């Protein structure tokens, strides 16, 4: 069960917030296995517990019940082996792009020159070698997320968690981010857990798509997508079109009726 690098086992994890009568069950008991090197997407309505689950894997939230085991070790807190890309504002605005990446490399105890070289290499990988000395405020939203990806990958994590990383970007920028993400993932090969609202995005990227439902959050359906990459959102395969329709139907909220007035 703990063979290769980056095996994530979510075992009966349940997460509640608050105490006493004000308890919210954010995530009902959930089992899930992320095999090393796979790309798993989590889709579901707002508030269904996607972020909660991801935060538990990242070690930011302790499960109320159950446990999360990564390569045989139970998660007990944030771990540089488990990289996280946040939706937005995760970059440190007081460091340049290079400074942000160097922050991630500091713990490796490299020499000054080696540190700079490695950091620049990471930025170049996401096409931002020429923007190393810009501050986040000087970069567009897409560029910022590319720096964030470079920063996270700089630590060579074996697991990569992404919580709606492209949620704040416009549709077109998001397309290029998808290509970029798949490319760098191809090079680094971590186990990815990717949270999104966008069914197309999930189908474009993932090997496995888990669909969650709200109240209390649980996985209601899982799909394996074995269409080879690169996939095209403009012209989905027939298999994907069917899965897409199914997921969209699953997630369709009840219509809003006009009140009797």
């Amino acid at each position, binding site marked *: 069960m703990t063979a290769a690098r980056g095996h994530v086992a979510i075992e009966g994890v349940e997460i509640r917030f608050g105490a006493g009568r004000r308890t919210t069950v954010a995530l009902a008991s959930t089992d899930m296995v992320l095999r090393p090197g796979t790309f798993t997407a989590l889709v579901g309505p707002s508030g269904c517990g996607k972020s909660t689950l991801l935060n538990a894997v*990242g*070690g*930011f939230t302790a499960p109320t019940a159950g446990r999360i085991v990564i390569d045989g070790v139970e998660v007990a*807190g*944030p*771990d*540089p082996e*488990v*990289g*996280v890309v*946040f939706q937005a*504002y*995760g*970059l*440190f*605005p*007081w*460091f340049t792009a290079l400074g942000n990446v160097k*922050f*991630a490399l*500091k*713990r490796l105890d490299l020499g000054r020159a080696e540190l700079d070289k490695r950091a620049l290499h990471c930025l170049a990988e996401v096409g931002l070698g*020429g*923007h190393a000395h*810009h*501050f*986040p*405020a*000087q*970069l*567009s939203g897409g*560029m910022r997320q590319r720096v964030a990806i470079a*920063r*996270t990958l700089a*630590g060579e994590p074996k697991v990569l968690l992404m919580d709606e990383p492209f949620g704040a970007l416009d549709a077109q920028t998001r397309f290029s981010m998808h290509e970029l993400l798949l490319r760098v993932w191809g090079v680094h090969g971590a186990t990815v857990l990717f949270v999104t609202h966008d069914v197309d995005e999930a189908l474009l990227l993932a090997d496995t798509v888990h669909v969650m439902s709200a109240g209390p959050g649980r996985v209601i359906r899982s799909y394996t997508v074995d269409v080879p990459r690169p996939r095209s959102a403009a012209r989905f395969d027939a298999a994907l079109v069917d899965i897409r329709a199914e997921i969209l139907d699953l997630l369709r909220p009840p219509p809003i009726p006009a009140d009797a007035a």
Partner: protein
Amino acid sequence: MAVSGDARPAPRPRTRGAVYPALFRHARAPALALGRVLLSLGIVGAVWAAVSASGVFPDIIFPSPGSVWDAARELYDDRLLLPDLGISMGRAATGFALGAGLGVGVGLLTGRTRVFRALFNPFLTLLRPIPAIALVPVAIVWFGIGEGSKYFVIAYTVFLTVWFNTHNGMQYVPEVYIRASRSLGASRTREFCAVVVPAAAPHIVAGIRLGVALAFLSLVAAELTGASSGLGYRLQEARQYIRTDRMFAILIELGLVGALIDLVVGAVARRIVHWEGV
């Protein structure tokens, strides 16, 4: 934003402040702004001259611009205007440095450590409504009539403000930064120095900026007693001898120098926390 680069996205339509643009504080064209300032001050001066020329108030109560100018020249000729300013600035600077240093230090402690917070905050909160001037007698008794008591009075005010802002800044460090730092494997020390403090920096810098203004504002109170030079002393002296013209000259000096300092400190502050925008 103080820094700009070619890679920055084209400016988006500003959604703030466009309808009621700030003419004075963020003036686009410095020359134009200067013109406006001079015009405004000219008008104020004209009103002043008119009132004092009307003779409604005796010169001893409401001195004319001319006599204030003469008093300023007299102070200058007596080699008092600039030396007083220098001495006062020295006091303000020392008091400020003590107060700000301590304020940032204690703020980092109370912002970071539960024990210090529980220990200090209520006490410091009770101190905040006590004005420096009320502490002057105590300061004299404790720190003597030398520079010590003046530094104390100035540092006291600066300290409380800087502490308060630093402490609050630490309370509002966005959690995403802490999460990012921890998941990137930073030690607690590095997290503190490279994440928590910079994240709180905008508040700290704002507190320090306020502190500079307050150091300046406390000068007069600090020099009320035990001083034999400095702007506050000179003002007090002018009052003893009912030299209203001198009082006005010193007040104007205070206003000009203070406004200038605030301008400079504001520019420096924007540089330091450049990522915060204006």
